[in-house]
């Protein structure tokens, strides 16, 4: 390497050190955007995988159900009206109350809303997530659908709004029917797919996946709630269920 080369390289380095972009970057804004986009991305991956895995059944079930018919109870279950419902809508201490249209529910304080997600299934949807540890996925995705939802069919990867096998009915104030599916085979299979494993073979670190479907009394709208939390999380699902209320 010649002296001329070194001198030239030194000159280049000196000039280069003074190069700055014309517009400065705001690190606070850019960090916030990075965090928000990552949260949304995680929620989308988890939520869409679960709903996509059961899309074929969804379209068929909804089409057969008839869009103008009031919601039906599960076989063997009685319809529960708002006035008959037990005292539900209990908000655990420290949790914050959120709303999506007529549905209200509570979430732990560490869950932050990521805003409406237009590309998501459903006419309107929001995701709340706890990102204290990026390696631990904790999110609640809530969406509302009606028969008018354009993509509510099997071919477009729609959202299943009818309970699957293993669904248990529970009471929600203002709801005609509310069901919860907690780690059913169907959901576990979808979660396995979501994590890149073969469907139906979730690994030991698979998340706990649950789906709550709330049919408001006297309405065709259906709220679908996807819960993704670590396997040993019990409090979130229980607290969320108890806090649900329609109207």
């Amino acid at each position, binding site marked *: 390497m010649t002296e001329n080369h070194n001198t030239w390289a030194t000159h280049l380095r000196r000039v280069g050190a003074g190069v700055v972009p014309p517009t400065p970057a705001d690190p606070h804004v850019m*960090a916030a955007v990075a965090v928000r986009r990552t949260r949304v991305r995680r929620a989308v991956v988890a939520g869409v995988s679960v709903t996509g895995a059961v899309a074929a059944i969804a379209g068929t079930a909804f089409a057969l159900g008839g869009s103008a018919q009031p919601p039906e109870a599960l076989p063997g279950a009685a319809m529960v009206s708002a006035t008959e419902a037990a005292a539900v809508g209990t908000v655990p201490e420290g949790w914050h109350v959120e709303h999506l249209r007529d549905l209200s529910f509570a979430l732990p304080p560490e869950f932050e809303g990521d805003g409406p997600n237009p590309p998501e299934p459903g006419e309107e949807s929001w995701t709340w997530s706890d990102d204290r540890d990026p390696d631990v996925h904790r999110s609640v995705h809530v969406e509302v659908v009606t028969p008018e939802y354009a993509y509510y069919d099997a071919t477009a990867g729609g959202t299943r709004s009818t309970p699957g096998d293993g669904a248990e009915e529970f009471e929600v104030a203002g709801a005609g029917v509310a069901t919860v599916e907690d780690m059913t085979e169907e959901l576990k299979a979808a979660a396995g797919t979501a994590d890149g494993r073969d469907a139906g073979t979730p690994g030991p670190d698979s998340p706990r996946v649950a789906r709550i479907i709330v049919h408001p009394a006297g309405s065709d709208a259906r709220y679908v709630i996807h819960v993704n939390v670590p396997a040993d999380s019990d409090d979130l699902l229980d607290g969320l269920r108890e806090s649900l209320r329609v109207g």
Partner: protein
Amino acid sequence: MTTIEDIEPPRQADHVPPDFTVVRTGVTAVEQFRLFAVEHTATLHRIAYLMCGDDHRAHDLTQIALERTFRHWSRVKDGNPFGYARRVLFTARVDGWRRTRREVLRSPDSVLEIQDMAGGSTSPSDVDVVERERLVHALRRLGSGQRRVVVLRYLLDLSETETAAELGISVGTVKSQGARGLARLREHLEKD
């Protein structure tokens, strides 16, 4: 083909500015990342600008680097998060450059205009501004491989070994690309 998702965190803790260290203090991952961003965004943005020579694209690349760094924060936070973000910057930049190179190339006239503006006065600051602008313009005329090596090796002052590791190429390639890139850069600058 290696994709951005395949990037492993750098094994060496090189070129982490000495004033930043990730310390476990009980703060959340998000807070740690925000501290990291406050510390390093300006540097990443400057590197991105050197690599693409376009203000808007540099901003986008910096945003991508921060986003992907946060996505893998649990893996990179205890190593060299800045090195990881910088690698994302370089890898992400290549595809975008290929798609939009013609769009972001600025007319040489813009450089000449600045030279003309500085022609009447020869203050050191004006000369510096012209030289920096000419350098950015000349860098954009290099091929992507040569430009990456020149930026890392000569503008960011990494060693040949570090440059090779950063770009995933051999030291021999760094030497050849660097020599050719430097020669072409000089040629462009002297021609302008």
